[in-house]
């Protein structure tokens, strides 16, 4: 069975790569050049490599956020809004302080609490009125994406900027770069540490045990004296806070200010990152890296040869479609499952 699983993931990767090669050849004027930059580009120099690692940071955080919600058996579809809006609010708050340490602290705390609040409300609606949490989180998230756009375009817009963005944060508020000239920053290390922290929490702590029980069988958990509602609320708030931290760290580490549309769908791709890692926190930084690799490959290819960077979305989509599929399924298993 195990060998079939491995074979299955090989097929997934092979199909994804095959489809991307095919589409790259179709749309690009110089297919060979494009293929080279797409697949090897991210490793060709320190700058590209560091940027690839940096662009995996948001996905590590949103991936962890999705994973935390999943691990208590809940869905958080509002990651995008939590990521985007909270980072904007955090940046605006941090702009008011001149001291670097205070400012950084304020940014992280404000954004994390805003994110937690955005996911806490839909979770509360689910607990109180059994309101579908898929709809709740998604709608609240989308609404606050628009509110974030409004803040950037209206009251907090930097008048000297050519596009919607806040003023720059102080140079010394930003996170330390660790691989110049690329934009890789210490946030990457924090992300990996958080991955393992959550792995151990999930595996060995009481809260982790309660999460797992609620996910496995809520009724059993209830009989066992676990407060299912409380676990759901904790999981969702934690999930929102993590997504928000991801946004804030991306602002502090890479952009230096909140820019309209800086999230680039990180919230949705985060769900993919979590699923790709089979909801195992210790693997999320790897799946985030894989997704970021596709993204940076496409970006480099579009920079070097004229190809649309949307190729990355296409390939990510194919990976998502195939990632939970199991090829080489035994006939017996297939039939047994459909009657069960």
């Amino acid at each position: 069975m195990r060998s079939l699983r491995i074979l299955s993931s090989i097929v997934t990767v092979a199909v994804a790569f095959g489809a991307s090669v095919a589409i790259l050849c179709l749309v690009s004027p110089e297919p060979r050049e494009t293929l080279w930059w797409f697949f090897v580009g991210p490793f060709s120099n320190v700058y590209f490599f560091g940027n690839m690692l940096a662009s995996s940071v948001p996905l590590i955080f949103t991936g962890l956020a999705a994973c935390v919600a999943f691990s208590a058996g809940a869905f958080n579809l509002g990651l995008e809004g939590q990521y985007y809006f909270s980072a904007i609010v955090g940046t605006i708050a941090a702009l008011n302080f001149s001291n670097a340490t205070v400012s950084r602290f304020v940014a992280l705390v404000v954004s994390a609490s805003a994110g937690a609040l955005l996911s806490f409300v839909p979770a509360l609606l689910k607990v109180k009125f059994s309101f579908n949490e898929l709809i709740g989180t998604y709608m609240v998230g989308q609404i606050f994406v628009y509110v974030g756009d409004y803040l950037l375009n209206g009251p907090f817009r930097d008048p000297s900027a050519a596009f919607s963005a806040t003023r720059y944060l102080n140079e010394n508020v930003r996170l330390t770069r660790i691989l110049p000239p690329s934009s890789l920053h210490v946030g990457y290390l924090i992300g990996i540490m958080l991955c393992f922290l959550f792995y151990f929490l999930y595996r060995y702590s009481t809260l982790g045990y309660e999460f797992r029980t609620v996910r496995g069988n809520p009724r059993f958990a209830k009989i066992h004296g676990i407060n299912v509602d409380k676990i759901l609320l904790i999981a969702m708030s934690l999930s929102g806070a993590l997504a928000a931290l991801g946004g804030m760290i991306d602002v502090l580490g890479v952009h230096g200010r909140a820019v309209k549309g800086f999230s680039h769908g990180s919230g949705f791709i985060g769900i993919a990152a979590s699923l790709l890692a089979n909801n195992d926190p210790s693997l999320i930084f790897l799946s985030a890296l894989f997704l970021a690799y596709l993204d940076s490959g496409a970006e480099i290819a579009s920079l070097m040869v004229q190809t649309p960077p949307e190729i990355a979305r296409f390939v990510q989509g194919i990976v998502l479609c195939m990632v939970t599929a199991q090829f080489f399924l035994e006939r017996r298993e297939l039939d047994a499952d459909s009657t069960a």
Partner: protein
Amino acid sequence: MLIQLLRTSISSALPISTAALGASFTHMLGKLNIAVEGTMLWACFVSVYVADRLNSWLLGLLAALISSCILSLSVWSLHRYFRANIFVVGLGMNVLISGLVVLLSSTLLGSRGTIFFEKIPQLPVLRLSSSRSDGIDVLLSDYNVLELIAILAVLFSWIVVKTPFGLRMKAVGKNESVAKQLGVNVDTIAASSFILCGLYCGMAGSLLALPLGLFVSGMTNNRGWLALVAAVLGGDSPLGVFGVSLILGFAVALSHRLQLQTNVPSEIAFAVPMILTLLVALTYNVLTKARKRG
């Protein structure tokens, strides 16, 4: 004024309601197809592209219907034959199409922005030529042929649910193994409901793009997700789904009006459909919950 708003609400509601009905077929089956947004966007592109090349809106519509069916069926096949998680496949399909559509429009048409297709023939429009120009006349007149087909599709879905096929679909959704033991061919029912979903989404996409004769990669603008909300709230009843869609259509029309005629910031106006939907959904939920209790 109010009549005008109602009239535009109906027009805005039709794409949402057709997509929502499509999704509700899969929802009845217990396997909600999340790929509605992507399938709609795909149908938008295919319908205008084919209509422009072949100089016929009917062929454009047909191409959109067929290709959306294929997309929808592939979502189902990945789920059924390779045991993929239907939710993840749907999400993947949305991501894939949002990329593919931009790729195609920039390679085939050489632009990533708004593309106007001038060669698309005008759609026939129904005009009521009565001498009265009161409210009813405004409300009932000036529907283009696609909107009429969409209205027929709403009626059709109401009939489908009453047929043995519709009942079997619900039975599969309630309990698959019992349905199977009663001799229902689960696979056929499921495949047909996904085909229906594809057809309806294709219709919804054409309805958005063909009358305007243009394509933008953001033209579905979350309508697919609103449709999913309508499908979930409407539950098993097509009329319920259509009713929720009408409210959503009103919200979309209101949001357009706010943008054009007031100085509400456009970002906030964009959020209006979302906020209204959330409020409606919430009220509905609270009310039904209260009824169950009392």
